[in-house]
């Protein structure tokens, strides 16, 4: 049962990272234009380097 001492914190931390990542995406307006984001990946405009 000692394994629980590792597993429970690990599961909580992993879940917490997921939650923080989600909060980050919401804060940075990443759900404002889902359709546009789906289409933008098809454009080859900034393939070589990121948009300045």
């Amino acid at each position, binding site marked *: *049962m000692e394994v*629980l001492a590792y597993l*429970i914190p690990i*599961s*909580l931390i992993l*879940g*917490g990272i*997921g*939650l923080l990542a*989600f*909060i980050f995406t*919401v804060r940075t307006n990443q*759900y*404002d*234009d*889902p*359709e*546009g984001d789906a*289409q*933008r*990946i*098809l*454009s080859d*405009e900034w393939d070589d380097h990121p948009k300045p």
Partner: protein
Amino acid sequence: MTAAMRPNASACPACDAAPAAEALAEQAAQKDARLALSLPTIHCAACISAVERELSAQPGVKSARVNLTLKRATVEAEQDVTAEDLVGALEAIGYEAHELDAGTLSSTQNDRAGRDLLMRLAVAGFASMNVMLLSVSVWSGAEAATRDMFHWISAAIALPTIVFSGKPFYVNAWSALKNKRLNMDVPIVLAIVLAVATSLWETMLSGEHAYFDAALTLVFFLLAGRYLDYRTRAVARSAAEELAALEVPRATRIVDGEEDTVQVRDLALGDLVLVRPGGRMPVDGEIVEGQSELDRSLLTGETVPVYAEPGLGVSAGEVNLTGPLVIRATAVGEETSLHRMADLVAIAESGRSRYTSLADSAAKLYAPGVHILSALAFLGWYLYTFDLRTALNIAAAVLIITCPCALGLAVPAVTTAASGRLFRKGMLIKHSTALERLAQVDTVVFDKTGTLTAGTPQLTNLDDFSREDLAVGLALAMGSSHPLSMALSDAAREAGIRPAKLSDIEEVPGFGTQGKLNGKLVRLGRAGWVGAQALAQTSAFLSFEGRSQAFTFSDTLRDGAEESVQALIEDGKDVMLISGDSAGAVETLANRLNITKWVAEALPEDKAAKVQELSEQGRHVLMVGDGLNDTAALAAAHVSISPASALDAARVASDIVLLGSDLSPIADALATARAATKRIKENFRIATVYNIIAVPLAVAGLATPLIAALAMSSSSITVSLNALRLR
């Protein structure tokens, strides 16, 4: 702006745009201009990059970002860049673009409430999954110290989450209690608090059952319902705002002989305002200069244009047709007739707020029932065992199991599915109970001008004219952008007529067009001007070699009007036509559409009174209208629809907006609304059935957290799946 003018603008944007930009700069106080453009035709990755590249290439533009979901572009630019330049640039590369008023849109920019709800939902989801994992271990046999530890970890996750995620419910419940009312949120909050409190107590005493997972899943499912509900309304609201923002409230003020573009709200009494042909009157006023014709159809429903000359009073919302007019403002802002109409709307609307939504009536039955049941269970068990702990545990179990998880999802899941389906067909559901009200409709009242008809005239008597006359008429009509002239030239060109060779063609604003054929004067215009007797219907007269002949016009039917009315009649609805137009025009249209009941020459008050009268007879009226004269009736009706071309005031007053120009979705919407209401009631029944099975178990003290979790999850999922069948 045309493509030809653009190089000029790019070479010296400041010279071109200076007067307008100066006025704008004063308001925006030295900040960069933020322009919004509506791009209705973009649809793919290539469109996005083409539009962004073109916009960024414009001088003065700092950044441009396209939002494909909203079909909109946001541009950050220097002060001297105007939306007209950008619209012109986009139109030159083949994209339709319209300026949006940034002020009207600003409220959607920062969607605080939605983001807040989403965040709480995410936290509740995270916590409930983790706690559920721990609970599953408990259910599968964790014992003694392990079980206690799992319960303590659950408590550590659950407590802060409940405090944070449950906030919307606490706020709603508190405001209801303060007003001495009960709403759905009161039993929710009671269940959550009681569940957490008893679970904590049990955990301290190393008890067997803790309901942390139930409390969290409850919050999660309920928040999901709230969020769905919110999204549906946010989508409708942002689309409605975009329609309003398309009408940029600017006017041209004349100061010391110079034209100056200003915001309509900055106009003052006595200001001279220039209204160009095709423009809408920004304020009430009196004409001081110019001659033209006015289209009053949005205000009164009349289709025949009115002759305008100095001295005539005009109302905000009328459209100037032929010549430029200078008006002196006699009423601005809140004083205009447009705004006075809003008072009528406010009075009429008080009737509608009496409607109780299905969810509210369910809550009214449900909330007291649950409280009484739980209190009885507590009392019964306390008297039976004299053990406060057992009694409280059972009372909490009853509250959790009966908690309206499924009820909370039953309505939003269905309205989301139904609104989504109607939105794809071009209908915008603005009001949350609009679908329920639409399902009850038994009488449909239509407005004529602009609603059943497209508002564009169509020539009816082409065959009465010789080809020679038509050639002359066409040549004259081509010299004008008056709607009747345009209809005439379209019809003549379609018949293969070539314009006659005329000299000295000139448009006389307010009267018509004249020219010379072999030295003889020919005229096309108003009856009095060409020396003919006026007709009752919409007509233009051609005077040619001393005789005059009338071209008559009728309004074209809107697409889908015939099918829509036919479908409504077949569906057993009582269809009526109420218009402000003359009896002849209304009767013709009514006969054409097989509408037996019609009223002509109705004033705005008459329309509202008629709708009210029908409502008092116990009918549920659907009003479809577009004009200012319809707004009171739209607000008085049980439920109302207006087309996107309607005046802003009419769109605000109606529950549903038709986005396209087609009327045929109306009949379909009634069917969808009925299906949606049926699904909502079905969902209530499903939720009740689950309760009927689970509640006796809970009252008997047999419910475990496992049973509570199963009942709650399965009922919520069944309800959502049932709603999805609507899509």
